[in-house]
């Protein structure tokens, strides 16, 4: 189902959490709402779910205006940041909840629960309680619980926020595959740009209650619409008042060209590229340059060497 929010504004007292926000989420896409914490992305997700009512604006799911509809009337599945498991129920009872409150026949409920347990790979844990599960298992349990009612839309609030890095990466890949499998329109809130870029077809960058930019990960990286997007997504460096990607800066080790003159401060060989920090007069921070990893650059560059820098191609404005 296509989800649209039009001109949504939400205030908490004098704090403006969402300021005239409009987004469009294509049917069956996996969209990430990305931004710093406190920027309004979780509030937007909660407005879409009906857990918050906007002060103005409209929410449509599948073309139907659901701005004032109760959460249970929206056909959504919502996964909370801290999972919100039903602690007094087993894994199976948690997953079955949405079906039992709809008074579905017992046989249907148990076969659907069995199916979902397999889908989220919790086999053998059906009779456990949430307290007896690991963080990643709890996460998958509440995902199965949300999927049990066959939502038209799946909303996930920082789904991997409370997990450590290795499990995060694993669950991210798994969620991506799951999304391909079940093809339900999905929105994920995250503050982790790497997560957003790797996971989503479409990323909406939200900052200070406004949409900074929406687009594919490639669009956001290659054509950032504002210095904020430029600096928030991927590496960036400031040269002569403009933001650039560090690999978009040419470094002339012989100092012959007429680029900005500078002095190498340090050279770091990383697995994927070489990072060179260059001190340029009138720049507070060193200009960062990424060079491809071939021995030549390393041997020629040493701290103290005078070089010249030239920005190539696009820049992210001032």
């Amino acid at each position, binding site marked *: 189902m296509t989800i649209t929010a039009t001109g949504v504004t939400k205030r908490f007292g004098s704090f403006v959490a969402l300021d005239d926000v409009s987004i469009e989420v294509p049917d069956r896409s996996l969209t990430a709402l990305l931004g710093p914490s406190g920027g309004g992305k979780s509030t937007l997700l909660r407005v879409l779910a009906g857990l918050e009512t906007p002060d103005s604006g409209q929410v449509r799911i599948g073309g139907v205006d659901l701005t004032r509809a109760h959460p*249970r009337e929206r056909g959504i599945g919502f996964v909370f940041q801290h999972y919100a498991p039903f602690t007094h129920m087993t894994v199976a009872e948690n997953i079955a909840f949405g079906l039992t*409150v709809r008074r579905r026949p017992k046989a249907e409920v148990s076969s659907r629960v069995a199916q979902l347990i397999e889908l989220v790979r919790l086999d053998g844990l059906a009779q456990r309680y949430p307290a007896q599960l690991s963080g990643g298992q709890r996460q998958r349990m509440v995902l199965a*619980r949300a999927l049990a009612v066959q939502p038209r839309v799946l909303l996930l609030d920082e789904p991997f926020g409370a997990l450590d890095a290795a499990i995060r990466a694993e669950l991210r890949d798994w969620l991506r595959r799951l999304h391909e499998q079940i093809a339900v329109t999905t929105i994920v809130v995250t503050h982790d740009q790497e997560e957003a870029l790797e996971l989503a077809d479409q990323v909406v960058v939200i900052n200070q209650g406004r949409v900074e930019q929406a687009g594919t990960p490639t669009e956001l990286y290659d054509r950032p619409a504002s210095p904020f997007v430029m600096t928030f997504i991927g590496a960036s460096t400031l040269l002569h008042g403009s933001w650039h990607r560090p690999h978009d800066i040419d470094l002339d080790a012989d100092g012959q060209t007429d680029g900005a003159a500078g002095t190498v401060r340090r050279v770091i060989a990383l697995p994927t590229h070489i990072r060179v920090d260059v001190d340029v007069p009138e720049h507070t921070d060193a200009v960062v340059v990424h060079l491809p990893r071939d021995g030549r650059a390393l041997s020629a560059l040493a701290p103290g060497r005078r070089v010249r820098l030239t920005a190539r191609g696009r820049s992210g404005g001032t």
Partner: protein
Amino acid sequence: MIARVGLRVAALGYLALVVLGPVVLLVARTFASGVAPVVAALTSPDAVHALQVSLMLVAVAVPVNTVFGVVCAFVLVRYRPPGTWLIAALVDLPFAVSPVVLGLALFILYGRTGWLGPLLTEHGIDVVFAVPGMVLATVFVSLPFVAGEVAPVLEEAGVEAEQAAATLGASGWQTLWRITLPAIRWGVTYGIVLTTARALGEFGAVAIVSGNLVGQTQTLPLFVEERFSDFDLTGAYAAALLLGLLAVAVLVVLTRLNRRAERPGSDHPTTGPGGEHE
């Protein structure tokens, strides 16, 4: 090590001195001349009637205050209306006010010469020296317990599980019965235990408004006091022991009921070694 043992001895010693000692003495004295006098004292018509009156007060005060307490905790924790602090203070008032003061207040309001008393008497309703006054007094003194126990548990439980239930299609009632009440079950249980104990044991307020009419408005604590004043020590001890046993019985029964409803790990989440990771 020595410090720890010392602390333990001090704590247990204090408990023995203040709690265990008197109880043991009471039991010993009660049965000093055998079981027969105790049975006789407890089966006397006045004792049986006093027990019935006390249980009747419990039967009214506990359900009333349980419903009120749960609703009140909800309002205080979830809705925070303007004047929440005032509501909270009023709910706690019975803790602060001496029961005797309350008894006198009820007397002033509902007594023969009180503000409302004559009006009610005209319509055939006696409050003071009758059951309604005793019920009012008992409900008042046992009011804060359920609200006081439930509010922090409700606060702790948070709203996310309820919101999750709503997104899964649960109605308000379904969420209340299946999610919220199970989450606050222990708070309600302890609230009920404390309310029952208070309602059973209330003396001061009930002593004033009941008039302590033997075989009519005499509760079990009043019976104990009357036996004691009349030098019927066996009767007093026996009734006092019965009061104590009733309170313990309520505690045991409710804990058992809850244990049966409880499932492992549900209320005391424990994260075992490595439990946070796969």
